[in-house]
């Protein structure tokens, strides 16, 4: 049993409920114990670091300090944006001058020596792929998948220190192990338009449209992603993209934890397929039913 503090992130309580619930379920099934940070708060996301770096670090550091109070030194989060903020805060606070400034904004000071990792990294580095394979009860045979990592899960490499920054393979390897066919997808680390869906929707429809187009070109039945914002831009906004670009995309966008949970035979209720906006039934239907036990 691998035990680690868990930072769900705000979207896990709203727009990416299914990511949070499927993450918890697959971690449990794979003997990774997630211990929720009590009374965690928002990391400040992109808006905070675009306003001020000390403010941004302090918002993340409040949570890192909670992890320290828990007596733990590792935290995991499903969200790449939260991850970047937590890692950046810890990194910047290695500088005593910066740490003093950030701690001056906090009630409880933070030492900043908590290591933050994505859930994907935890599943890649602390769970044996062979073990995952051995637990597969419904292999994903027959479905073609484009693995989309988003821009900041692995970048910049000096900070994120996980997988490859131009050609990450963690999700590819995972999906292959589950039996899916992974299609060659060249835009796996291209930006989807990030948080501009609301203030500059035209940017998101263009950039996310490019991703969907590239996925369709290589014959993907579905996307898998590890980022709540990427998922929202590609899935919830797919109708807007179609409208803006005169397209007819109809490509479901799963969280990788949903398909992992499906292959492990977990309860459909926690996987939350019904929360996806683009109907995933056609794509899921491509998965060949396992042969009857003889």
């Amino acid at each position, binding site marked *: 049993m691998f035990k680690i503090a868990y930072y769900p992130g705000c979207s896990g309580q709203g727009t990416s409920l299914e990511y949070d619930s499927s993450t918890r379920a697959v971690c449990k099934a794979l003997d990774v114990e997630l211990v929720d940070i009590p009374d965690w708060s928002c990391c400040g996301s992109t808006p905070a670091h675009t306003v001020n770096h000390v403010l941004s670090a302090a918002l993340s550091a*409040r949570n890192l300090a909670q992890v320290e109070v828990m007596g733990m030194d590792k935290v995991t989060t499903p969200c790449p944006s939260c991850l970047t903020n937590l890692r950046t805060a810890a990194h910047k606070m290695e500088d005593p001058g910066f740490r003093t400034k950030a701690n001056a904004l906090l009630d409880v000071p933070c030492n900043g020596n908590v290591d933050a990792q994505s859930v994907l990294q935890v599943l890649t580095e602390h769970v044996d792929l062979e073990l995952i394979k051995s637990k597969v009860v419904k292999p994903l045979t027959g479905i073609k998948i484009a693995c989309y990592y988003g821009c900041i899960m692995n970048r910049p490499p000096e900070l994120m220190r996980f997988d490859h920054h131009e050609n990450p393979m963690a999700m590819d390897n995972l999906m292959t192990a589950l039996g899916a066919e992974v299609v060659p997808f060249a835009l796996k680390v291209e930006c989807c338009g990030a948080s501009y869906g609301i203030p500059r929707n035209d940017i998101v429809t263009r950039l996310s449209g490019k991703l969907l187009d590239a996925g369709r070109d290589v014959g993907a039945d579905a996307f898998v992603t590890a980022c709540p914002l990427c998922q929202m831009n590609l899935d919830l906004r797919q109708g807007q993209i179609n409208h803006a670009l005169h397209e007819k995309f109809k490509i479901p966008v799963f969280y990788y934890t949903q398909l992992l949970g499906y292959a492990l035979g977990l309860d459909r209720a926690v996987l939350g397929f019904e929360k996806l906006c683009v109907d995933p039934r056609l794509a899921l239907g491509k998965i060949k039913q396992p042969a009857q036990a003889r």
Partner: protein
Amino acid sequence: MQIFDLATADLEFVAEVEARSHQKIRTCYQCGNCTAGCPYTFAYDYSVSQIMRLIQTGQKEAVLKSRSLWLCGSCQSCTTRCPNKIDVALVMDVCRHMAREAGYATERSVKIFADSFLASVERHGRAYELGLMAAYMTRSGRVFTDVDLAPQALMRGKLPFKPHQIQGREQVARIFERFRKGGDNV
């Protein structure tokens, strides 16, 4: 094309950007790798390598008034691919801080979105999506933003009607309060 007079270089500005970002902007030799990988160039007024050059030549007004600063998505492509290891995305961030401090906001809706988001965090301790949308629509006057998506999101239970109030929300509010009283960004 706009022409800049290099005799008007504001060297204090150059020094300030270098000090606040801890980056040696003078080592940029304009290879263009940052611009080549930047997905936002189509929406920018100056490409990211042009911004770097404008900083080098001390063109403070042009940089701080640039729309590009507000449209950078912090995707880290420029930082990752810079051959001189300049954290370009960080430089863009720092220039955006300076533009804010100087009272510029050439992409008003982007600033309003960020402000609404942070106001939501200050109030509840966590981001509250529905409240954030309402605040954004009120402040920006764009009352039809994403109304097409609301039914889908609500139907799937993805937009809770109530914020998740956390016990430590006053602690979070105090972070903002102390920051306003004298936050330092270097």
